[in-house]
């Protein structure tokens, strides 16, 4: 009995230590960035680093409203990421349904090529995309950037959603067909509500990828479409790096991602807890 309890306590302690270490590895840079964002540029470069200093919020004010304000870029990022996410979901949900349910010619090979696009290293695509967008006159435009993002997000979203859709029992759709529901009505009333969790997961992934994307944004964007990841580069120049302002900007840029993550997490849990058939699969 006592040995059991001791083993359990030991297990908890070991788990806590491992979890804390992992958490620390993730959180430490964030804490460092937060501390740096409260220092003056001079203090940032002080060696050894100062522990006691008078904190200032001026870096946040500069990052948001100063010479290199990131507000416009935040807006650009929001437009690009939201549009990419919305378009991806609108297109991926019916496509995933088709892959999961319909009898299509060459479905298997289509599925493979959809996934194959994910295997190409992005850096290999930068120049081709640059040339294509240039030919279309779509460089530094919202529709150009969103289209390029869609080429990555759509295959990934379809692949993710297919597995969720396949888990919805086929009889439920058959029951709906018998009740005079069309394919679209069945998708809307029966399938989509049951894969809400999957859609929430997909939304997070797609939005985060689009929001954090840098490589294509820096090559295919410009003065009109300059997402926040690119805009932050303004704090780094040949002469100097404005670490404090950069940290403040980075933390501000992270905020929407964190908020969306927390909000969507509730949806995911809700999606997981919905399930009527006892012992039913993933919902």
């Amino acid at each position, binding site marked *: 009995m006592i040995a059991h309890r001791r083993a359990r306590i030991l297990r908890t302690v070991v788990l806590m230590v491992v979890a804390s270490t992992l958490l620390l590895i993730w959180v430490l840079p964030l804490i460092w960035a937060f501390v740096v964002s409260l220092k003056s540029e001079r203090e940032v470069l002080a060696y050894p680093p100062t522990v006691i200093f008078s904190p200032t919020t001026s870096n946040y004010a500069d990052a948001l409203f100063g010479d290199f304000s990131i507000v416009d870029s935040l807006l650009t990022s929001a437009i690009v990421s939201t549009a990419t996410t919305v378009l991806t979901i609108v297109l991926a949900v019916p496509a995933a349904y088709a892959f999961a349910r319909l009898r299509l010619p060459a479905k298997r090979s289509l599925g493979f090529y959809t996934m194959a696009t994910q295997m190409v290293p992005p850096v290999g695509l930068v120049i081709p995309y640059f040339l294509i967008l240039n030919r279309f006159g779509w460089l530094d435009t919202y529709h150009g950037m969103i289209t390029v993002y869609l080429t990555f997000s759509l295959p990934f979203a379809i692949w993710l959603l297919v597995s969720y859709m396949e888990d919805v*029992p086929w*009889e*439920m759709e*058959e*029951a*709906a*067909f*018998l*009740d*005079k*529901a*069309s394919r679209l*009505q069945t998708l809307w*009333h*029966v399938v989509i*509500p*049951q894969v809400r969790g999957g859609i929430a997961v997909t939304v997070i992934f797609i939005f985060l990828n689009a929001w954090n994307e840098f490589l294509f944004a820096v090559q295919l964007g410009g003065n009109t479409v300059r997402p926040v990841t690119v805009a932050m580069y303004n704090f780094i120049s040949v002469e100097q790096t404005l670490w404090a302002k950069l940290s403040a900007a980075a933390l501000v840029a992270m905020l929407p991602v964190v908020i969306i993550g927390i909000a969507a997490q509730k949806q995911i849990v809700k999606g997981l807890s*919905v*399930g*009527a*058939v*006892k012992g*039913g699969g993933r*919902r």
Partner: protein
Amino acid sequence: MSPQGRVSLRGIRKLFGKFVALDGIDLDIEPVEFFALLGPSGSGKTTTLRMIAGLDTPDEGTVTVDGVDVTFAPPGARDVAMVFQNYALYPHMTVRDNIAFPLKMAKVSAKSIDGLVHEAAAKVHIDDLLHRRPGQLSGGQQQRCALARAIVRKPKLFLLDEPLSNLDAQLRLETRVELKKLQRNLNVTAVYVTHDQEEAMTLADRMAVFFEGRIKQIGAPSEVFDRPNSVEVAAFIGSPPMNIVPAHLDGSTLTIEGHAVRLARSFDRVPGPVTVGIRPSHLRIDAGGIPTQLYLSENLGETRLLNLKLGEVLIKMRVTQSEPLADGETVPITFDSESIHLFDAETGLRLEAG
């Protein structure tokens, strides 16, 4: 207006790859009939039901409902409702929304939906559970919810795919009675798939017995029970099923394990091997009978089931007496020659006297 729900299947054939699921199904189901499709798993009964529902289409043959060819009509165009084996309730909707779904799809006005939902729910006694979700219901309640969803829009055909198989034994018996009552009250044609012959016997007005994609016999349960037309049907119907014993027939003399039995009927055929079918309840212990060895005695409460070795064959006999018998003991048995069924040893088809 004549009652609706007459179903006719003609020459239905269905292949799944190279597997012949249905091979020449001809079937007529009359209006307001409770019709059971009975057979072991993989015999094609569910596939037949799905053809009637429109969830599958035949490779050959036609399906007509009330004289209209619906062979390739989509399920929604057939005015049929179905209760699935696992109920197929929508987990994200309340019981009320589940039952209301067919009405919404049929564009029934929101005003009348509420009344109809209540009416259907009351018929299956779940009107106090309307606010719950399927996940919060017991198996029996889920089944009732599925029934309510099926009856709410008053279809002309009511299809049931082993609806009782997920319920426990006690509940199954209760629901069986209610199901039959419900069908009578609604005055609707019901097609019922089951592998449980007892269910088919008690519920159905008529039934079709399926084996390997073919219908072996169609008739009223008593007809199929009393006059099975083949060894397969004979061995499938009855609980416990009929004993099947090899024998030799010469005119009116039947020889089982070297013992000659005189039959009341004479069979005009070349003397040779036949298969005899005897129900366990039609066997008696008789001092001058055919000797068998007791293999095992099972106590069923009111009756006792004796497993006897007749030569190499194990047969079952139902007795009411509880005289003590030891395993291995010799039990001489006899039967009324009127109560036995004779089948051709090769074709397995029923032999008639004359």
